[in-house]
């Protein structure tokens, strides 16, 4: 992974000093609340219902075991012994004291981490494919470009006060695991016929109040031009994006109002001025960054491990876990493992400090000391030998991180919701838990197969409900909490926004509503057809009828 040099370290250290002074001035009354707000937001510090919430950046989700141990330490020392992994591959601490935040940042800086631009109207943490470097369908390893763009976005002087927040996602694989179609900018690293690396550039996607699928504005951008082109897009947005209404300030609204074709013309015109300029990326810089992401010392193995194959055949519980939580690796004899943070009764994405410490030890023992946070709020070991899967599974079971539910109904993506977040209209964690409790029969879950169930506590859509096969959105009706249901949403290269099935429901009805949706699916599905494919084939009517016939 990328390691800081003296230049990177100084920048982060100077940020700690800057924020320490800003916090001091605020606590001394030299800065008003209004003056301090944009400063703390640029550093991931929200004032929540009960305490400040600090969001720490995990660039493109990649962590070393040493960094994870520091997150465990921070959870223990400054919080209540846990952290919450987010849908932007970051981690949030829900209970720190404002006066202690500079010390937390100093601790983070000691392991090459920070909270820079984790909120505010600026370029946020760059997100990427959680299988990067290990996936068999990878055309280009995105990580050197993730880091290049992380550096470009960090303290970019021109773009610290954009009309609204700005999210960039990057993938280098044919399967889109980074949701690039629902980001302000999505970049897909590709190769030209000549083998040159470049990017397909997608702009104006997003969730939130106005969900929109992004538009391709350039099919192939040579990699040397990537920063010039990003500067061009951001400059057009910074100058012409709406600032009169925060709900219409995202770039997707500008792209929609101008039309993607006209917006693209403006970007290309701006790029003409910047092309070949100082920000053109030299091959040497790409090579320097790529050297940080060389493959770990894999052993040369012949195909599948026989011991692993027989363990799968003999042990049903292990086999269930392998079926759902283990993914193919580009190297023979290796596997990608997902640690489920979706155990029933634990808020989705939460991990205790003790769990984090043990996961760090396991990463050292089984996966070259690194792990990745996925935007589905799970943890990934990308490089595990098949012959060690049984031993790893056994340790993960003891830790409560081996729930065999990845991609299943109970692998719920969920924001913190009304239990913590001051933006929320409704709670989301108790809804997730009620659904997990209702559907605790593993055989039934496996029979249902792949179902993405996403829950957001408000229109800001941190739980990505629009792209859940089943999406649940908390809404406020006359001061009480209700839940609107969408179906048919999809992430990935066939991204689609879910359709609302009808009037919303009370919290206690939600497990029944999900059960009726599933009944309709089981009644109508073709063999080997996923829930979302049945919705696509039949539309929402059969589902709607089943849900509301029983409800009213």
């Amino acid at each position, binding site marked *: 992974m990328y390691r800081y040099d003296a*230049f990177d370290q100084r*920048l982060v250290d100077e940020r700690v000093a*800057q924020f320490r002074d800003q916090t001091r001035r605020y606590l001394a009354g030299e800065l008003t609340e209004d003056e301090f707000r944009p400063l703390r937001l640029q550093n991931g510090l929200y004032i929540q219902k009960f305490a400040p919430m600090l969001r720490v950046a995990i660039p493109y989700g990649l962590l070393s075991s040493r960094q994870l141990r520091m997150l465990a330490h921070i959870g223990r020392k400054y919080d209540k012994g846990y952290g919450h992994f987010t849908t932007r591959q970051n981690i949030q601490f829900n209970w720190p004291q404002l006066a202690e935040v500079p010390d937390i940042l100093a601790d983070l800086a000691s392991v090459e981490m920070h909270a820079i631009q984790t909120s505010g109207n600026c370029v946020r943490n760059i997100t990427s494919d959680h299988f990067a470097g290990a996936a068999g369908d990878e055309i280009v390893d995105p990580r050197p470009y993730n880091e290049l763009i992380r*550096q470009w976005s960090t*303290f970019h*002087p*021109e773009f610290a006060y954009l009309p609204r927040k700005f999210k960039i996602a990057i993938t280098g694989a044919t399967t889109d695991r980074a949701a690039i179609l629902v980001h302000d900018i999505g970049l897909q690293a590709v190769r030209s016929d000549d083998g040159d690396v470049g990017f397909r550039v997608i702009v104006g996607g997003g969730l939130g109040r106005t969900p929109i699928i992004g538009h391709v504005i350039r099919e192939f951008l040579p990699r040397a031009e990537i920063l010039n082109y990003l500067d061009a897009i951001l400059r057009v947005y*910074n100058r012409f994006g709406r*600032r009169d209404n925060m709900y219409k300030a995202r770039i997707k609204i500008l792209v929609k109002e101008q039309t993607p074709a006209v917006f693209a013309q403006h970007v290309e015109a701006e790029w003409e001025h910047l092309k070949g300029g100082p920000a053109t990326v*030299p091959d040497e810089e790409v090579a320097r960054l790529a050297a940080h992401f060389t493959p770990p010392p894999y052993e040369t193995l012949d195909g599948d491990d026989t011991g692993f194959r027989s363990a799968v055949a003999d042990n049903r519980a292990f086999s269930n876990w392998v079926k759902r939580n283990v993914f193919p690796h580009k190297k023979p004899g290796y596997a990608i493992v997902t640690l489920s943070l979706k155990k029933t009764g634990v808020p989705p994405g939460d991990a205790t400090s003790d769990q984090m410490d043990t996961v760090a030890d396991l990463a050292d023992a089984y996966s070259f000391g690194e792990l990745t946070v996925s935007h589905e709020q799970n943890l990934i070991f990308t490089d595990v030998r098949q012959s060690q899967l049984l031993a790893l599974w056994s340790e993960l079971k003891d830790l409560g991180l081996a729930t065999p539910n990845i991609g299943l109904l109970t692998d719920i993506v969920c924001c913190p919701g009304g239990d913590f977040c001051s933006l929320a209209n409704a709670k989301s964690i108790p809804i997730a838990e009620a659904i997990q409790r209702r559907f605790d029969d593993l055989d039934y879950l496996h029979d249902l197969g792949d179902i993405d169930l996403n829950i957001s506590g408000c229109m800001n859509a941190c739980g990505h409900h629009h792209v859940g096969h089943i999406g649940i959105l908390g809404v406020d009706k006359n001061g009480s909490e209700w839940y609107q249901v969408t179906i048919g949403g999809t992430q990935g290269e066939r991204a689609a926004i879910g359709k609302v099935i009808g009037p919303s429901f009370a919290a206690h009805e939600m497990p029944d509503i999900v059960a009726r949706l599933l009944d309709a699916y089981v009644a109508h599905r073709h063999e080997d057809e996923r829930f979302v494919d049945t919705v696509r084939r039949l539309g929402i009517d059969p589902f709607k009828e089943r849900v509301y016939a029983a409800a009213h």
Partner: protein
Amino acid sequence: MPQLIKSGAVIQDRWTLLREPAAALPSSPVIVPLATWLASRAELAACADVGVWLAPTDDPALLAADVAALPVIAVDFPRVADGRGYSIARLLRERYAYQGELRAVGDVARDQLYFLHQAGFDAFVLRDGKDAQDALASLRDFTDGYQATARRTPWFRRSGVVMPAAASES
């Protein structure tokens, strides 16, 4: 006289900022709105000590022909959160090669100074009630940065990663 941060020091500001277009100009030195400048360009250009200020919605390209003649261009920040002025500054410096004083006015506070300076501003009028002397330190919040700005090339062009052209040819 109000204070001005200029070239890293606090000095007295001798310029008057004319916020609204007016039929009769106050005596110079004066910074007039872009609309006033465009309406009476020939007349104003003949006066010494006339500058122009731009609102966030103004197009800096309209001053492209005037950059050599103008001693001061100001850019207004109606709110800290309105970041359009940063792009305007870079365009004036990098695209239109403006060399004169570029000042940030309006809702300008010390915690914005570093980024404003990198965007190309070299003069700052802090909003009312803010001590300019205290604010000087914030110009040095960071020693350096990654990106190309009005003040520097990207770090990867200075870090030794890229061989100088002469060396790579040999």
